[in-house]
């Protein structure tokens, strides 16, 4: 186990020990180690790298350190800045997990139920990756989550760049219980008044957050951006149904012309859940 003090030292440590695994909060990694799924030859601890434990402003964006803990992101000062991400961080498991788990860890683990991921997708955030020799490259989070781009050997996620939109954002999560639990479905929704856009992402229903682009464009065109942004309840309901149908589509009709199969009851309930979440998320953002 090495504990580098800067991002470049960490990259160098990984280069020196290619079999080493970087670890931040360890909430996913150590569970895998404990259950015997993973036996890393060495660990590179990222918790001493102070440059990635905070955030800074950068031309209309916030540059978030990948080592920000979920607990830190849940605090009011952060919530005033990026309310959707703060809400997702507060919903992400019990306090013990939130105290250790990090933003970068959430992205790298890329669990379908990762709570910050739909918010990052809705915000169209980008990831700044540190590579050998001080190299930095910037990749959209969604590309990383979709596997369109991968972390190369020796690379570490350093920062997440998030636009500051100065408008309401919501994150809603459905779980089967009152206590902390994994999302059955989650919806992140952000308003972008400058670009007159609504951006929405649905988490936990697929391997990565899904963006219902047509539904976003349709509802953005309905909103009176210059005055009261409110929408009629029917429009909110229609938006919810639009989002849900886009994310959990009906099975395609078979080519031989026979009747299409219907969704199983559990999928229908999931679709109704997504519809209710999206409707509520938009309603709360516009109210």
């Amino acid at each position, binding site marked *: 186990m090495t504990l580098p003090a800067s991002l470049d030292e960490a990259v160098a440590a990984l280069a020196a020990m290619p079999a080493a695994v970087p670890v931040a909060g360890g909430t996913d990694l150590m*569970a895998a180690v404990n*259950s*015997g799924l993973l036996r890393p030859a060495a660990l590179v601890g990222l918790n001493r790298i102070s440059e990635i434990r905070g955030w800074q402003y950068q031309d209309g964006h916030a540059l978030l350190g990948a080592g920000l803990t979920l607990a830190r992101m849940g605090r009011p000062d952060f919530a005033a800045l990026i309310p959707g991400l703060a*809400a997702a961080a*507060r*919903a992400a498991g*019990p306090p013990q997990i939130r105290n250790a788990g990090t933003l970068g860890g959430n992205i790298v683990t890329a669990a379908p139920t990762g709570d910050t991921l739909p918010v990052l997708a809705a915000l169209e955030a980008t990831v700044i990756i540190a590579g050998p020799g001080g190299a930095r490259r910037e990749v959209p989070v969604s590309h990383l989550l979709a596997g369109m781009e991968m972390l190369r050997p020796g690379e570490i996620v350093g920062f997440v760049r998030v636009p500051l939109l100065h408008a309401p954002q919501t994150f*809603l*999560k*459905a*779980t*089967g*219980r*009152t*206590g*902390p*639990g*994994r999302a*059955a479905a989650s*919806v992140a929704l952000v308003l972008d008044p400058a670009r007159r856009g609504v951006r929405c992402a649905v988490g936990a229903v697929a391997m990565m957050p899904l963006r219902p682009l047509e539904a976003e464009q349709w509802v953005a065109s309905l909103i009176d951006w210059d005055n009261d942004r409110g929408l009629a309840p029917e429009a909110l309901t229609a938006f919810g149904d639009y989002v849900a149908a886009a994310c959990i589509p009906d099975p395609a009709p078979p080519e031989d012309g026979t009747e299409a199969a219907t969704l199983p*009851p*559990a999928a*229908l*309930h999931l679709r*109704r*859940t997504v519809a*209710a*979440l999206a409707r*509520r998320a938009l309603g709360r953002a516009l109210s």
Partner: protein
Amino acid sequence: MTGTHEGAGAVTVTAAPGTAPATTEAEPAPHGLGVSLPSADAPAKTQGTFPYAADLWAEGLLWAAILRSPHPRARILSIDTKHAAEMPGVRAVVTHEDVPGDAGHGRGTPDRPVFAKDEVRHHGEPIAAIAADHPDTARLAAAAIAVEYEVLEPVTDPQLAFEAEPLHPDGNLVRHIPLRFGDPEATGEVVVEGLYRIGRQDPAPIGAEAGLAVPRPDGGVEIYTAATDPHTDRDLAAACFGLPQDKVKVVVTGVPGATADREDPGIQLPLGMLALRTGCPVKLAATREESFLSHAHRHPTILRYRHHADAEGTLVKVEAQILMDAGAYADTSADALAAAVSFACGPYVVPHAFVEGWAVRTNNPPAGHLRGEGAMQVCAAYEGQMDKLAAKLGLDPAELRLRNAMATGDILPTSQTVTCPAPVAELLQAVKDAPLPDLPKDAPQEEWLLPGGPEGAGDPSAVRRGVGYGIGMVHMLGAEGADEVSTATVKVSGSVATVICAAVETGSGFSTLARQIVQETLGVEEVHVAAVDTDQPPAGAACHSRHTWVSGGAVERAAKMVRTQLLQPLAHKFGMSTELLQIADGKITSYDGVLSTTVAEALDGKELWATAQCRPHPTEPLDDTGQGDAFVGLAFCAIRCVADVDIELGTIRVVELSVAQDVGRVLNPAQLRARIEAGVTQGLGAALMENLRTTRGLVRHPDLTGYPLPTSLDAPDIRIVKLIEERDVVAPFGAKPVSAAPVVAAPAAVASAVRAATGRPIGRLPIRPQAAALTPLS
């Protein structure tokens, strides 16, 4: 020894008769029965210094690992242990070939092999065990054992077990009880039918199974583990090791949570065999996954009901079919089925009852004892039926239950007369009359926890509140002619008393109770409870409130015998009978206050010992129509549940559970309260989230992420509104079991509240969100 007391050696005669001893200390330590004596091991447990089996250590110990079946059903074609045995650090490998004695074991029916021989019958069944000098080596070696399987199609639907080819040489039917009571032709004016399915709850003990086996120089073996039934475990182990019983000793260590049988032979037998084989101590600490795969679960049950009632709502007839999935091996399924069939109509007067119950083998994980087994499953069903009946008759659900409530003197469908206190109507009335919790509109300034939790998606406009009821009944002690006996020894020496009894303290509070009994009877403040091992006489398994009744009774008798020994010389000296002397706060006084001495002085350096047994009145097995006086006693619990449901998402938050319970007599108020709260919370888990899911016999998520347990955020306000203390005259203290009854009633009450909030039938536990959500079509 007694010299520490002033005025030792002389009996002082006080001048003023009747004056109480002037020991008015600021706060005397609580002692005796009826007070909240804290548990002796509570400080060590809260500070993390209490030793559990996983903390044990012995010089030169080896680590064990068990190879478990990855298939729910497969034929074993060959087992090749050669590579594993040759790995450096591996000291022994054992398989079915190495079992020296009986190949089969099991509580109730010895139908389970120590290691699978020709066939594996459930996911996680042990096939071989390894002892090595490091736990990782042992695990790697276990993985290196080459087993050739012919994978077979598993039978996982209990409804198909009747027609399926035999999964076990004993056949697929573990037990069938066709209960017939009354007139089969009777019919009611109103008939309701229902189908109910209960999931597979896991005991999920906070500490996973662990044990240490130490070989003895005489060829025997000692097993240190958190057994809850050490003597049965010892007998099974001795039979499998081919040793006489006195060569095997089970020593009970700290028990890290037990609501079911713990540390079953599946852990003890491989450990003992490896210790005997290697001549070294061998330790095993199960992983959470192994724990989920190895111990017994609650029986998943399918119940079909038809209730007949007259127009006023008086029950006429109950017809039911109960199918319990016993999993691959019988375990205690026959007993669970007897409870399910006997209590199938609930605590209601039913003149005609026809109940068919089956427990069948499948290739699912084995089921066994778990608090309220059998009774909990049927409670969810009969209370569902009562709700349906109330809805059909347009009656208040509580009113309908009150009209049919059982009381002392009524007859169970097994033809047994209820002779113990049965204050069912009073319990229900108490929870019904308890004030309801505030609605959000009554206290708008407060922050309301909505279904879905603090950061959830709950929307007040979609939340509906429901109120529901559940009344559970459980039996005390073993049923159907089980020989219930416990033996206890009490020793007094100086100012210290010691209790020796093989009743395991599982967290049920027995050791605290034993201290209270001795304090009450002998007036000795300092009472120690000795550690349990099988060199002591048997006390039975720690379940069904056995120890409060049977072992508590034995402790009381032994303490009374010591008391007589202690007082006899004094009584003789002063020419009065021992009944006229009383002991309190370490002092012996006569009825008139003339005589006053201390216990220590009366002992005069002697040690007094007494051993006594307690054996409650016998019961009889159910006959071939389910009739018989099968139970020693019954206990009841009524719960009212208030639940909020988000009808769009189907998320449920239980706001409050109000409990009224028939406890016989409160022996330790704080402990009683804790036991009820724990039982209610376990019931809540069964109602809302706990279900060990399997796919074609494979356990899908054997971990605490995939198997959620209620946390403090999930737990509602639990209000104990009434404890009815009507002493059961046949029980030693008149006390009744407290832990199991709330587990039985709570799931039914939660389902009833969700039914009231949504109007949906709620036939399946745990309740899935889609069952509690209202769809535009439904």
